[in-house]
């Protein structure tokens, strides 16, 4: 009898201990899940640090950070099963596709209620996430393409500064090739070559999402790029046995490349010598200085379980304070005008502010255009004796055939 009562007492005590703290904690702390993609260990580590500052300022919200391997596919599965994360990265290129599916939460009511100031954001970074009066994401940062040069390889060809114009680039290419150095590694991808459409005075899409690819100026930009592939001044990462242009640049297989701020932490981690030898500048100017800029946003799903806490997170991370912390790690530059560009990224900041730096188009079906352009571009350059003009015409024709009708 005594044994039974001792047992019952212990059981009651165990129950009290196990139930009491968890009920208190459940009332006090909400855990939100935030799903992202990670391009490098440095980027993930920077994000963890930025999230830690959010948690220290918001002790009632804990963040469960999930770095997806295939963010698009994993988010699609979560949307379909109505279990999206509370907050997730939303790439500008697919924002309109996801919005059209009706799975994103309109942030405007929360923005209005919180009196969150949207005028601090560069309007072109907000545009990909807008649909009518609705706004489905707040841009977490921005990233324009700039020219990176390896000073060691440049010096081997007697070059001291980055080429400022396309004519200077041609002169540099000649000197570098004379030393058996590949001048530039750039993928045959509209998200890279599109910058030359802009530099030659053209563009990718109009404000009403009509194609600008076949304009004479855009065509001139692509023909220039194609002629560089033909001469050997441009090579694709595959032609240099690399997975992407940053890897070829890091392995010193080319003197120049054109990437965004994401290249810096990658080089710092994997190729510190090349990182130390790197200089940056705007892309070579043709008719004008121009570049492409990329952005991504924080968004909330329509079925996200904790929209209130999710908004608190987004408000902090895309606010001046949170964005200052995040961009201070140098993986991207701020998308807000009231956050200063971190040291070492001044060039990226200058390029981002150029009136001729355009964000990549964002409309439903843009992904098909990208696929068609890239497939045809890679096909055209696989033969060494291609005709640059004909190749450019074929690439533009393929991309325009995939352009959404209407």
């Amino acid at each position: 009898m005594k044994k039974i009562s001792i047992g019952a007492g212990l059981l009651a005590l165990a129950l009290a201990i196990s139930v009491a703290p968890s009920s208190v904690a459940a009332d006090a702390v909400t855990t939100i899940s935030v799903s992202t993609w990670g391009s490098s260990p440095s980027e993930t580590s920077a994000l963890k640090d930025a999230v830690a500052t959010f948690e220290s300022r918001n002790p009632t919200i804990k963040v469960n950070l999930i770095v997806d391997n295939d963010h698009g596919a994993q988010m699609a599965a979560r949307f379909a099963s109505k279990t999206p994360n509370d907050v997730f990265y939303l790439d500008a290129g697919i924002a309109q596709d996801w919005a059209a599916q009706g799975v994103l939460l309109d942030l405007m009511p929360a923005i209005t209620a919180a009196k969150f100031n949207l005028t601090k954001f560069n309007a072109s970074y907000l545009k990909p996430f807008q649909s009518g009066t609705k706004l489905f994401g707040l841009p977490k940062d921005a990233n324009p393409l700039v020219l990176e040069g390896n000073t060691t390889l440049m010096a081997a060809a007697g070059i001291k500064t980055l080429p400022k114009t396309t004519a200077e680039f041609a002169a540099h290419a000649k000197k570098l090739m004379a030393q058996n150095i590949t001048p530039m590694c750039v993928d045959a991808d509209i998200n890279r070559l599109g910058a030359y459409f802009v530099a030659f005075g053209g563009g990718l899409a109009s404000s009403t999402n009509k194609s600008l690819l076949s304009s004479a100026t855009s065509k001139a930009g692509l023909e220039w790029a194609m002629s560089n592939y033909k001469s050997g001044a441009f090579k694709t990462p595959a032609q240099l046995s690399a997975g992407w242009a940053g890897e070829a640049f890091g392995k010193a297989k080319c003197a120049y490349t054109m990437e965004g701020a994401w290249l810096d932490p990658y080089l710092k981690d994997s190729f510190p010598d090349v990182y130390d030898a790197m200089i940056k500048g705007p892309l070579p100017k043709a008719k004008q200085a121009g570049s492409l800029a990329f952005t991504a946003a924080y968004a909330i799903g329509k079925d996200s379980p904790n929209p209130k806490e999710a908004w608190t997170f987004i408000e902090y991370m895309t606010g001046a304070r949170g964005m200052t912390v995040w961009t201070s790690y140098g993986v991207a530059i701020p998308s807000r005008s009231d956050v200063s560009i971190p040291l070492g990224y001044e060039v990226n900041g200058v390029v981002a502010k150029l009136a001729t730096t355009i964000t990549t188009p964002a409309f439903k079906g843009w992904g098909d255009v990208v696929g068609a352009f890239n497939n045809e571009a890679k096909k055209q350059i696989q033969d060494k004796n291609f005709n640059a003009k004909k190749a450019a015409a074929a690439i533009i024709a393929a991309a325009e055939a995939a352009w959404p009708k209407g």
Partner: protein
Amino acid sequence: MQSSKKHSYRLSRKKSEILVGYGFISIPMALFLFLSVGIFFYAIYISTYDWGLIGPTENVGLDNYRRALSDPIFLKAIRNSLKYALLVVPIQSALGLFLALLVNSKIKGSKFFRSAFYFPSIASSAAITTLFIFLMAPDGVFNGMLKFFGVDVSNLFNQGAWLSDSRTALYSIIGLNAWTTSGTMMLFYLANLQTVDSQYREAAITDGASRRQVFWYITMPLLKPAHFFVVTTGMIGALQLYDQAILAGGADGSPDYSLMTMVLYIYNACFRKFEFGYASAIGVILFVIIFSLTILQKFIFGSSAWRGEN
């Protein structure tokens, strides 16, 4: 009286054995009916809808099928998948048979060779494809070997980037998969070879048959069940090529959609465009193609091979 009792006991025992048998298979059969047959019919149902991330929005009848059959990228995906299957299956089967005959003979170290030949089959396909990408790169081992033999490919095939040239990318993947799957095919052939009664061969040799005649007229016909199994499973697997294609050519199967396969196309329709109805229609078309080819193989190999008889 006693014999009638015995008879009824035997009957009831037989009945209970039958019931136990059905009991055992009922759970897997229920799972099969639900997860395979049921899901297949559900896919047919979905394929008649415009079905996005939040579910069906409109019944579109057969529009998804019409759209698929008029989409040049999908038609290219069918051509690529069929070309791949029709080339890789004979190569991997022939290699598998050759390796099986080799390790089945009484050569020294046959156990080691058996493991060595099977090793690529157990390696992760993602890992082995990544390794293969390095081997086939312009400065990879393959081009190095060609250079050693005096063949310079730096001006050919996208400057030696075999997996980035639309004329060589698919053939490179065929080579990769013929190498990695031949070990599995070897095992199937080996299993069949070891059940073949050696007296047939011995009798033929006694009658004066040459080694070549023994192989073509004795061994090959006796391996008919293995041929059927290897070709059928090989064809089904080949038509579902996905991982090597996406790793080498990206989700667009580039360059020039040369690595776009039917399953990669389904992935794009599902996870990049969120067109689940359209993706289901492609899935049904893929099923019809695989099913038709399997039935065709059954007719080619004959019903004895289907039943596993020599």
